[in-house]
């Protein structure tokens, strides 16, 4: 039946980690994810988990320790945000290329500078090509559920890739909301025991990890990582289906909200999707066929499936909470549009960069996007497909 609770997003993730009881957690505190290792270290001190908690001196060391312990054969988790992830940069590529299924909770925050501690997705978008699976979460419930599913996905033998579960810093990480927790024993049975096939401390099968890999093999190894990333799509769906049987909560590669007959569609990720849902409901009351496609799985990118889901729309807006500063458009926009091209889907698509550095995104902002979509549809004109939402001054 689940346990009715009220928790912040950070508390929810820490409790998921407690229920998973990993072998090792190595983390360095950084706003707004600090509370996750803080709460978790309390569970360690209280003996509620038997995890080896490694309090390191930097995020570079945190990821290095995670790599060491996961390579040794231990189930390993961590949490970070923004500049913490930046400092891990060198090591996150090593984690994915060594095929180590580390699970990270990434509480999204703007990467400096200038210094800003608030939410946007510039940290996650920076890591989008690093070979990590990336799941996004609308609220505390989804952050919790995604973490419960994470190890099963990452550790699957067809995948073996690290995975990050993203949620919006402060907006969900520090907001108390209702949540339904899963009973400890059910989580334990669902997550299962970690029995890696290959690991460094297996003295019967000695192996090396991360040796020199030059012209003759690196290309093939990278291609294998790409195959694993493609495989992850199927595994995510399988694990999500099993999760649904346990909890009744359905997860796919993305969520379709009133999308079936929608003419005007917003595509976005994380907490803004909740605000979009509320706006969609209001617009529907006035007879506007508005809809939402909320991306849950950003890596691997479900391009084909997204294109199909958008195929009946008249106009689409893709919202990016990070600017790629490339003169062309945000990361989600570019992925969606290139997927649409592959599927020969030629409906107008417009990009809005929004919410940078924690700029609040209101229902009014979202309503203005739907108004724009209707205007594009009526005028059959789309002059500037790369726009800002909520920016002061000239757009």
């Amino acid at each position, binding site marked *: 039946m689940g346990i009715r609770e*009220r928790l912040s997003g950070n508390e929810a993730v820490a409790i998921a980690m407690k229920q998973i009881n990993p072998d090792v957690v190595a983390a360095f505190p950084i706003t707004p994810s600090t509370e996750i290792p803080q709460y978790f270290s309390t569970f360690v001190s209280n003996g509620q988990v038997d995890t080896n908690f490694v309090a390191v001196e930097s995020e570079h060391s945190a990821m290095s320790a995670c790599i060491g312990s996961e390579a040794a054969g231990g189930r390993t988790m961590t949490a970070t945000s923004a500049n913490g992830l930046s400092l891990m940069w060198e090591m996150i590529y090593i984690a994915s290329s060594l095929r180590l299924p580390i699970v990270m909770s990434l509480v999204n925050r703007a990467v400096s500078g200038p210094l800003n*501690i*608030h939410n946007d997705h510039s940290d996650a978008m920076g890591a989008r090509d690093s070979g990590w699976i990336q799941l996004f979460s*609308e*609220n505390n419930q989804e952050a919790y559920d995604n973490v419960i599913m994470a190890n099963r996905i990452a550790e699957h033998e067809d995948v073996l890739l690290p995975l990050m579960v993203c949620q*919006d810093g*402060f*907006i*969900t990480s*520090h*907001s*108390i*909301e*209702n949540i339904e927790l899963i009973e400890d024993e059910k989580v334990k049975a669902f997550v299962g025991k970690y029995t890696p096939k290959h690991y460094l401390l297996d003295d019967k099968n000695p192996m090396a990890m991360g040796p020199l890999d030059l012209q003759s093999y690196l290309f093939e190894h990278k291609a294998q990582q790409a195959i694993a990333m493609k495989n992850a799509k199927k595994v995510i769906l399988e694990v999500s289906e099993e999760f649904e049987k346990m909890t009744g909560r359905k997860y796919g590669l993305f969520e379709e909200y009133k999308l079936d007959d929608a003419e005007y569609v917003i595509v976005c990720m994380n*907490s*803004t999707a*909740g*605000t979009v*849902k*509320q706006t969609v409901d209001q617009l529907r009351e006035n007879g506007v066929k508005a809809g939402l496609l909320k991306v849950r799985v950003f890596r691997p990118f479900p391009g084909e499936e997204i294109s199909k889901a958008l195929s009946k729309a008249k106009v689409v807006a893709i919202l990016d909470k990070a600017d790629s500063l490339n003169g062309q458009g945000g990361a989600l926009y570019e992925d969606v549009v290139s997927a649409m091209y592959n599927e020969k889907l030629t409906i107008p698509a417009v990009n809005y960069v929004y919410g940078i550095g924690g700029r*609040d*995104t*209101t*229902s009014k902002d979202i309503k203005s996007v739907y108004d724009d979509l209707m205007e594009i549809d009526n005028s059959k004109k789309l002059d500037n497909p790369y726009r800002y939402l909520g920016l002061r001054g000239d757009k």
Partner: protein
Amino acid sequence: MQNLIEIRWHGRGGQGAKTASLLLADAAFNTGKYIQGFPEYGPERMGAPITAYNRISTEPITIHSNIYEPDYVVVVDDTLLEVVDVASGLKSTGAIVINTTKDNEYLKNVLKDYEGSIYKIDARKISIETLGKYFPNTPMLAAIVKVSGIMSDEEFLNDMIGSFKHKFAKKPEVIEGNMKALEMALKEVEKVK
């Protein structure tokens, strides 16, 4: 109770407006509601103006943004009345609740553009009498419950004793004083207009 009630808290860093918003979320949660309780994190330091928010609903809440058109506003520190536009967007069908000892004429004048109801309470007096120290958030919590009618006095007090037992597990001696502060505040909140 209407479907969704939105509340905005104005205080100064250190006065416990954030904690009060979380306690209110807790109390509403315990009566079966869907809730949100969240502060707006700025450059937080002792004495700086801070804002916190509550949404309380009978239906699941999906919106994730700050509150610009609240049903109720709570002002924990009356020195903010001339510094921050505390009634900004406040619905005229709602109310503002102020911790103050200022007279009614001053309050009506400083909020002359606001058409809705104004309530006041001397949270300092209540806090000093019951807790021996100035913690305005406990009386203000009771005041907003009374004014908004989110739950009955009895439901609220029954629930808060549980919350305080949990919150003050390591300082049980302050539970009685906090409960007294709530009871007094429920009685003493006074309508200005």
